[in-house]
């Protein structure tokens, strides 16, 4: 796969960057090699010819920098604790599954269950995501996971969400067009979702309320949308100027009485 077809602008080689060719290799072998390199003190890695290898970045508990060329497989950065990963294109399902800390930046779209059970760190998706993104994200004390989606999301966004911040910008969605997302925040009982643009309120999760933004909300958006914009070389101001709504859980125990007799 050459650079021209990927539409990738590559910066001058970084000092100490190690290139790992993943062509035709099994993920176990690749992850084993990455772990060995990181243990030797390598701080910057470039994975080329990636095609569906799973669990990349999972077992590297250090703040290494990883650039991925190609499409990584499912569970990219699952249980990740520390690395900063950018994917120069699309990613698949389960990115940042139960991720603890670090950054994932996808220069394209990603699939379903992004940030599944995420506990900390940040995920930035430049474009769109699939179903059940942020399902059961959680937070505790200083561990506050953040997902920013630049485009739009499919159904069950923030399903059973228990904590953290989920932001949807609708960047290339005309303001008069509704997000396709249905059942947003179904079962939500913690955390907050900010969504810019039109939402079909008939299909909001039953456990979710909708509010205009407070100054505190604006400050949260300013911070995270700023990071999103920096990750992809975009302007933050036009994104922040979009009309946002805040979705919040109406109760912290939505099923508290469901099974009580």
């Amino acid at each position, binding site marked *: *796969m*050459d650079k021209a*077809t*990927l*539409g*990738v*602008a*590559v*910066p001058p080689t970084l000092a100490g960057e190690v290139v790992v060719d993943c062509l035709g290799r*099994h*993920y176990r072998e690749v992850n084993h090699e990455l772990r060995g390199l990181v243990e030797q003190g390598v701080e910057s890695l470039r994975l080329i010819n*990636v*095609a*569906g290898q*799973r669990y990349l970045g999972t077992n590297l508990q250090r*703040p290494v*920098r990883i*650039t991925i060329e*190609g*499409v*990584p*497989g499912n569970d990219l950065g699952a249980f990740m604790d520390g690395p*900063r990963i*950018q994917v*120069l*294109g*699309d990613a*698949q*399902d389960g990115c940042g599954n139960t991720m603890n800390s*670090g*950054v994932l*930046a996808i*220069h*394209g*779209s990603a*699939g*379903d269950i992004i940030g599944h059970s995420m506990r900390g760190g*940040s995920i*930035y998706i*430049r*474009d*769109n995501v*699939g*179903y059940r993104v942020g399902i059961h994200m959680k937070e505790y004390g200083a561990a506050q996971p*953040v997902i920013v989606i630049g485009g739009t999301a*499919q*159904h*069950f966004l923030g399903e059973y969400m228990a904590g953290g911040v989920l932001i949807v910008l609708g960047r*290339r969605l005309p303001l008069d067009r509704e997000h*396709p997302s*249905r059942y947003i925040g179904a079962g939500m009982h913690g955390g907050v979702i900010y969504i810019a643009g039109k939402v079909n309120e*008939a*299909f909001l999760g039953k456990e979710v309320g909708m509010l205009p933004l407070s100054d505190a909300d604006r400050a949260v958006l300013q*911070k*995270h949308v700023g*990071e999103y914009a*920096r*990750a*992809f*070389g975009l302007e933050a101001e036009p994104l922040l100027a979009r009309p946002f709504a805040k979705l919040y859980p109406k109760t912290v125990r939505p099923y508290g009485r469901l099974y009580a007799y």
Partner: protein
Amino acid sequence: MSWANQENRYGDDKVFDACGLFGFIDTSGAMHDGQAVIKALISMKERGNGLGSGYAVYGVYPDFAELYALHAMCRSEAARQGLEAHLRQGWTIVHDEPIPHREVAGVLDAPILWRYFASPIGERAPGLSEEDDVVRQVMAINTESNDAFIYSSGKNMAIFKGVGHPEQIAEYYRVHEYYGYLWVGHNRFPTNTPGWWGGAHPFGLLDWSVVHNGEISSYGTNRRYMEAHGYQCTMQTDTEVIAYAADLVMRKHGLSPRLAALVFASPLWDEIQHLPPEEQRLCRAIRQTYGPLLLNGPFTVIIARQGEMVGLGDRIRLRPLAVGIKDDLLYVSSELSAIHLVQPGIEYTWTPEGGQAIVGRLGQRPQAPEHVLPREPAIERELSYG
């Protein structure tokens, strides 16, 4: 004891399932060899466990394009001769031969594989079309003997399948040597039913082929409905019923793929309530008519027939489906990475909503939906911690 159970010595206990699907159609009709689909399936090896793999290809037998290509699996030479004697009563066999194959390490228990190029003869009951008659005959053969059955019965198409990894089955059948304008492949991870030769995907009837990832929890209901319409399930796995259901609703009843999607993966009642009145009436009518054919549970399928490929997932997307378009080519796959791998210049990619049929048709250049925008270039950045 059935063939499937007797030969199930693979120790396939119940496990998480995640079969791999891949298919493409060149809508210009240009022919492609089997390399791309083999390569795509190998890249998704993780999705299977070596207990089944298979391929379907369309446009493959131009020399016998007008004849039914009956592909048979037989447990013994005696069973094959019995099948052939039976076939000679109802068919004119123009040509027959063993399906070419080579021995491959690790491929076990291969049955005798034979193909017959034939046309049906004899009286048909009034109102029965030639296709109906072929269905009746295939069903009769497959329920009569436990030792021989027909697993592919279309014109100018073939299914090659067995127990093994995608590369093993491809090599066994020399799949890369065939040419077609439409290819479908499957990598199996059997969960609730045995891994055996007949249970590998694709499943076929007439020129239908179906590959499937997931499990049909409504199988019992679907199967009883199909039996009432003369279709007998004999392959011990849920996918088979989808192939027969496709034949019933799309060939016999003439439903378009989009209407068939409303049968198999109807919108939720909650969603139907919010549709415009005309669409509501349509959705309600289809659910009333075809309720027992709603496929419940997690699934993604590729349903193909001569000139057409349909990708469809369940209505709440419990199994993945990625789509890509490059010029005349439409790709569907369990994983996006496989599409990029075989078509690095892919122009448009997206994941359709659950229940939405992705249709590729010979002679119709594929179009990305309006909401799928051209890809923006990736501009690499230094990432800081947010």
